[in-house]
């Protein structure tokens, strides 16, 4: 069947198999391999993408359900503040959770310029990290928010 969608600002009209999930469409058909599959059950959040303004697990959305939607994957994140903050704060280790974490962070900061620590922890509560212990990721998101509010530069 055919679906139309917009991924990272680009329109696609694409033939898909019925059983395809959104993550398969992104990775196998569109070569957007920055979206990772860690569990396939919506537990780890590595496959997080932004769909029509909200974060979703792309392993728990069927590709045909993404018809007419607007998807942002890690490859489409233009926000350098968040990415730089992750690098600066040592929030990146093995990197497999990083794309999902950054999209969860972006989704938070798009709506809330001045999040509390609790807001940040809540926003990334659907994303598992096995390396950092989370604190450095929380600091990175705090720092990104600060920079966005016109605070100190990196």
């Amino acid at each position, binding site marked *: 069947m055919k679906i139309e969608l917009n991924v990272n600002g680009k329109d696609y009209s694409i033939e898909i198999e*019925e059983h395809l999930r959104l993550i398969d469409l992104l990775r196998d058909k569109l070569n957007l391999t920055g979206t990772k599959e860690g569990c396939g059950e919506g537990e780890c*959040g590595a496959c997080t993408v932004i769909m029509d303004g909200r*974060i*979703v*697990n792309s392993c*728990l959305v*069927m590709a045909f*359900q993404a018809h007419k939607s607007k998807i942002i994957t890690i490859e489409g994140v233009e926000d350098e503040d968040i990415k730089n903050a992750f690098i600066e704060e040592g929030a990146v280790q093995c990197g497999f959770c990083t794309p999902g974490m950054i999209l969860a962070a972006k989704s938070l900061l798009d709506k809330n310029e001045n999040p509390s620590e609790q807001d940040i922890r809540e926003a990334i*509560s*659907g994303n598992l990290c096995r390396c950092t212990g989370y604190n450095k990721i929380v600091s990175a998101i705090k720092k990104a928010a600060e920079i966005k509010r016109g605070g100190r530069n990196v």
Partner: protein
Amino acid sequence: MNLKACYRPLTLKEALDYLEEYKDKSKIIAGGTDLIIKLRKGNINPQVLIDISFINELKGVLEVGEYMEIGCGTTFYDLASCILLNERLKGLKDAARSVGSPQIRNRGTIGGNICNASPAADSVVPLLALDSILTLESKKGKRKIYLKDFFKDKGKTDIRDDEILTTIKFKTPTKNQGLGFYKLGLRKSLAISRISFSVFLEIDDINRIEIIRVASGSVGKFPMREYKIENYLTGRILDEDTLNTALEILEKDIYERLNGRNTARFKSIAAKGVFKKALLKALCLAKGGGKIED
């Protein structure tokens, strides 16, 4: 997976047409957060998926007279942030907020939570305490059923293969009423409830319980009303002795229900604390406010 076709109807009528045509060969998909896992594990093997997430008439919350009506396609995120649901319904919002993770709440729907009939369905518990009424629609027409009568067994409901659950409605709580919810999970996010309770309470000025409805999750085959404790508490003045007796009744009842399972002792004791927290939250709301710590 053996899928042959997937449809995205834009109206309820169109969805019911597909359902009439494919019946048990098809499955309804909305948020998909449970269904896709079952599909991939081969637990279900439909030929057709009917996606109702594009049907706007099934989404959102409406105030109809003294009732609140929730569309089955309303996501947990939308429910948790709905301004129509007043403070007295905090228990329902708390439950919606406690489902899965932000990603799951953005997709998962209240209708899916009900139709899956999981014993641990978070949002079903407060809806039971609100004595909600479901509307099921098919090509043949509409029928209404109380949520408390909807579950037949673990994962089994009263829905027929040509029906769609369209709305859930309950009376809007008013003065002296409140709805509390509390959940015990292994961790804060993505934790399947170990035990959850919701309490709907109406109490008068001298703390006499006019109405109490208690619902539990994960202490039976499906979310259910706790009638024994309701019957005991109705009409009594809520004081420490009454509460202690009620807790004893609850412990005994749950222990007997779970007898033979290795969780029986833990759950029957822990349930008392979880119920008490839900009750105190309801009480606080019925009394018109104040903050309760989790």
